[in-house]
């Protein structure tokens, strides 16, 4: 038992190190003008990277904001549609259910480039290529497998027993959803939204292809900067990327808890 715990702790430390060390390095780079090998620390403190993000590149900040909105919208639609699909797969029996469930996973099973090119053909036909609508639809489709999976498991575990009980007490199914199902599924909803948000926010290839260069997101903006080799600017951009995502997660969690509290009058 102790051995097992030690191994688990070791794995956790390793996983945390894999995440935190690059973030720490990136943070140091974002605030350093030059950091040459074999120096242990950078030569001098510099805010050049952040000046570039927020002052020099005015377009960059605008793209960050619009990107946040696109990703929030994509995450919202992917979570809502994902919930509906999860509800259908978990609660109902219908023909071809197994195949449809498998089909909902296809965007992550097939390579994203093939997926993007496939839907691009249809988006051209429907006239929604090179537009925010097209990018948004592409992001939603790409995020759906994650939201369906996360919400499906918890929807199945929850079952419909509490909704039945609410109906017995005179509650309509819509009110039962907001007062019972949603609060009980809140951890999964937050996970699904966060996952969809981060996938959409970091999406490069799908955005490039479906947006046709007209729709620019933060990932599209950051990618060439990182490739260019200016680590200070790349560090600043990626740090903003990371902090904005954390801020959105906290905002979403707070907002949904506030809404649920207003509806049911309870803490969740």
């Amino acid at each position, binding site marked *: 038992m102790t051995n097992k715990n030690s191994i688990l702790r070791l794995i956790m430390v390793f996983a945390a190190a894999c995440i935190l060390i690059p973030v720490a390095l990136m943070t140091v780079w974002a605030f350093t003008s030059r950091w040459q090998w074999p120096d242990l620390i950078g030569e001098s403190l510099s805010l050049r990277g952040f000046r570039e993000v927020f002052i020099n590149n005015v377009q960059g900040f605008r793209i960050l904001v619009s990107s946040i909105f696109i990703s929030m919208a994509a995450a919202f639609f992917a979570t809502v549609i994902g919930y509906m699909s999860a509800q259908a797969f978990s609660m109902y029996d219908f023909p071809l259910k197994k195949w449809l469930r498998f089909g909902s996973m296809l965007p992550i099973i097939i390579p994203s480039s093939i997926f993007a090119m496939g839907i691009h053909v249809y988006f051209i036909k429907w006239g929604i290529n090179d537009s925010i609508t097209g990018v948004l639809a592409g992001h939603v489709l790409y995020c759906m497998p994650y939201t369906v999976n996360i919400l499906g498991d918890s929807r199945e575990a929850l079952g419909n*027993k*509490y909704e*039945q*009980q*609410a*109906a*017995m*007490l*005179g*509650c*309509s*199914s819509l*009110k039962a959803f907001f*007062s*019972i199902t949603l*609060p*009980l599924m809140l951890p999964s909803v937050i996970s699904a939204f966060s996952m969809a948000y981060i996938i959409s926010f970091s999406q490069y290839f799908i955005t490039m292809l479906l947006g046709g260069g007209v729709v620019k997101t933060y990932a599209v903006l950051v990618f060439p900067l990182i490739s260019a080799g200016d680590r200070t600017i790349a560090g600043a951009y990626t740090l903003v990327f990371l902090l904005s995502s954390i801020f959105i997660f906290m905002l979403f969690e707070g907002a949904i808890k506030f809404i649920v509290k207003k509806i*049911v*009058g*309870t803490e*969740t």
Partner: protein
Amino acid sequence: MKLKVENMKVALSKKDIISDINLSAEEGEFLSVLGASGCGKSTLLKAIAGMLPLKEGSIFVDGKRIDHIPAHKRNIVLVFQDIRLFPHMTVAENIAYALKIKKIPPEGRDAKIKSLLEQIKMEGLENRNINQLSGGQQQRVALARALAAEPKILMLDEPFSSLDENLRFDMRLLLFDIHKRYHMTTIMVTHNKDEALSMSDKIALMDEGRVIQSGSPEDIYENPINYKAAKYFGDASFFEGTVSKGKFNSPEFSVDCSLKEGKYILMVRNDAAELTEGDDFEFIQRVYTGNEEEYVYQHGETGSKIRCRNNSKKTDSLPVKASICLKREKLRYYKISSS
């Protein structure tokens, strides 16, 4: 409110689960639906509550047909066997949930919650989380929440099945007290005959998706309609025999009766058999249950067993070999169909 169920049939996955159900409960009556596991009792409650659609038949409350009305508008509350308290709410919030749906203002809600908690003897526990309550306490809260909804008809699905014997008794008393206080038509599903017999004004006995007998506890216990009904209540021994020329004859007994000729099963309740002098039965076991003492005797030739009571309570005088004398007025016969 008076409940009437006519020719109800319910199917699940194209298989008929219950059929030809005719049932009624008068206003303020306590009806128990009794039967073995899987006989369709819970399906019946769910269909009345509106959670399962009817394949055939109709449901009336006070003469008004309700089977087309959605579950949440029927004002019939079902307390499920697995209790189903909302885990993200406290005791008070669970009870308040029903009150909020009824749009009772906050000040009225608080008073009602206090009164209901008093009735279920859980004052001071309103802010407890559900997972901090014992099984019995959870059952009480579920009952209070159901009462808060002020249902026309209260239905309980095996409400005491998860409780131990002492709690079960307390809960029976509590439910009985609440039923009397609210004078609410109450339907309880149970597989426990003692529960049904001790609490009900009327019992409906179910078997294989049908109500095979309904009536008062005394009637249903004393006069089971058929062999299956008789067997369900236990407390009896059964002997197969033939009636001819006004006499029931089996290898064990010969009893005068006024039945048509044919094959019958004789039911002998434990209190209908008394020991007399003789040697055709042999003592094999003493069954002591605390408040009763029964003895099992075995017939020497057929090996069939009979349980009888020793009213004298003198265990030392119990004969190893004896004959059994039957009280004719307590005997019941069930015809065996020739097919």
